């Protein structure tokens, strides 16, 4: 568990973070979101002692982080930044294994770990001997994520890691990361200003503005009950209801029964996907199938509309 209590930080007299308190439960995919300059990166960088707060305490697993040697603390926390920040004079493999090497792992253990990471992140083994400048942005960031996971830390900090990637690479890495989080139970603290990204990944969201925490909660509860106008506007204002549809799977509104329609949708797709397909094909209902292609029933437009009228 990560806990920040009444943390404040000024940069040259300008408050970046003010009286900030936050608890991040172990195993959470915790997304800090807010406009540029709201202090979210500062909060992230205080967790691994890259920035020392002027006031307040920060604890990880009940231990004050400033009682620890900062290098030891950081070797136990994965860290990914926007531009990957790979070491340009080392190969991809050396970049991935930098923390295990700092921790003086044996060669055998390092090699085994590299194999495991290559499989986990679906890295093309041919890339391992290349230098960062020989890799695309998406490949670099995949190596950057592998580097953060290398020593199997229980906490990973990510500062807008996918912001500079093309949409295809970004979506692929988001899926990869969500799967890794689901399997490993690691705590991920993720900073972004992209609401869609936050909703795709988060188990909990914290919305920040001007150095303060405005609202935290599960993505759906924040969307359904924005604390104030700032949060409402930031979440998308008028489009907020559409965003909510993104969080609910088709399965939850599927009714057994026959339908006349031939258009089908996967049960794990979101209501937003379903609505999109209905609009595109001019249908008011769709046939729902599970991942094996077995028919589960149908979903209708009126049920989607009614669900929101109820909430």
């Amino acid at each position: 568990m990560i806990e920040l209590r009444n943390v404040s930080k000024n940069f040259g007299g300008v408050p970046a973070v003010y009286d900030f308190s936050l608890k991040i439960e172990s195993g959470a995919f915790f997304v800090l979101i807010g406009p540029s300059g709201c202090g979210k990166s500062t909060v992230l960088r205080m967790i691994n002692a890259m920035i020392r707060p002027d006031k307040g305490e920060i604890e990880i697993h009940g231990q004050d982080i400033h009682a620890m040697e900062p290098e030891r603390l950081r070797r136990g926390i994965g860290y990914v930044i926007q531009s990957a920040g790979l070491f340009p004079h080392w190969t991809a493999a050396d970049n991935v294994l930098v923390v295990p090497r700092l921790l003086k792992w044996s060669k055998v253990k390092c090699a085994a770990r590299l194999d495991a990471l290559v499989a986990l992140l679906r890295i093309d083994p041919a890339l391992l001997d290349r230098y960062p400048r020989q890799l695309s942005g998406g490949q670099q960031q995949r190596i950057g994520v592998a580097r953060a996971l290398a020593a199997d830390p229980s906490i990973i900090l990510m500062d807008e890691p996918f912001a500079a990637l093309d949409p295809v690479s970004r979506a692929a890495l988001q899926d990869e990361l969500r799967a890794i989080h689901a399997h490993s139970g690691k705590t991920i603290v993720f900073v972004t200003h992209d609401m869609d990204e936050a909703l795709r990944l988060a188990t909990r969201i914290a919305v920040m503005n001007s150095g303060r925490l405005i609202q935290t909660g599960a993505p759906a509860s924040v969307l359904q009950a924005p604390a104030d106008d700032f949060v409402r506007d930031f979440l998308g204002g008028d489009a907020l209801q559409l965003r909510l549809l993104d969080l609910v799977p088709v399965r939850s509104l599927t009714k057994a029964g026959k339908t006349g329609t031939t258009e089908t949708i996967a049960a794990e797709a979101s209501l937003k996907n379903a609505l999109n397909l209905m609009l595109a094909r001019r249908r008011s209902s769709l046939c729902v199938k599970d991942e094996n292609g077995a028919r589960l029933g149908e979903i209708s437009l009126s049920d989607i509309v009614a669900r929101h009228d109820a909430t």
Partner: protein
Amino acid sequence: MPKVEDRVLLLLSGLGFAGVFLGGFLNFAPNRLASGVASSLFRAPDFEAAAAITGLCGVTLLSFVPDQKLRSYATILAAALILWGSLAGAGRVAALLMPSASPAARVSLGPAFWILMSVSILAIVDAVQRGKFGFFARFGIGAVFCIGFFLMALAGDFDRLSLAREFLDNRSVFLIELLRHIGLVGAAIVFALLIGVPLTMLVSRKKTMAGFVFVSLGLLQTIPSIALFGVLIAPMSKLSEKFPFLHALGINGTGPAPAILALTLYSLLPLVRGFYTGFSEVAMEVKEAATAIGFDARQMFIEVELPLAAPALLASLRVVAIQAIGLASVAALIGAGGLGTFIFQGIGQYALDLVLVGALPVILLALLANLVFETLLGLARRNL
């Protein structure tokens, strides 16, 4: 009209022909003070003159050859012909002229000779660069030409040229002055590093100091070298009188101590500026990632900053070394010795060939330093 494939070669051969036909190849004078009579390359025995001219024609024709590999290899051969022809030719002409003359007579090398030398060496450099020769090939080509030159010298081919005679007359002190020259440069670089590295750390940590430090070093750099050497004489001799242990260490107003001090001061600006830029150009996000991963300050410096800044560091050391090699010639004026000794003796005695005995090795030393640092730079850049 065939297409010109290598303009450099065409230009070089043109210069070579112009030199051969317009300038004197050798200059014969009855003594040092007389202005003497110029004689052309065609006074040389047919074989040597023909070799040089064939080589030049070869370079001209080669500038139209499209095949890169063929052109590179053939250019090196043609340039070798020019080199051999003009070196051996000069030696032969001198031998023909001298027996009939008094011991005070001088046979000096003229403009045409130097132009032919430059043209052939530049043609080789061009060929090696365009042919993308590897390190060992370059080294091998250089070694073959050097060995060839020394074999000709040992065979006595040049003995009648007054440049060779001046060299032979000073042979006993030449090696000493050469080593002294290298010693002055080496000591200055070591002291410049001892002062420059902490100074770089200071300006990197405290950016407010950077302006002051660079302006001061820049001011030092603008003082003419002779003036700086001269200015140091008075305070250094005062210090030496005040503190006998300094005197015991050999530190005086004249001699190597003020020379090394002046060379060190001149080296500081390029060194500190290059090192400062080199370290500050290491990408912020790489340093940030290294910190976040858990590198301590020492690991950060050794594993990240040093290797990434290495090319910039070596580039500034190259500038420092070449500059110091040149400036150290002036140190002879304040009794520090070095190759400058021959230059100033030669000027004093109006013996221009003696000037060359000092000046040519200075140029060769600078070229050698350049080669060494180029090689190191190539190694440092390999993975960047």
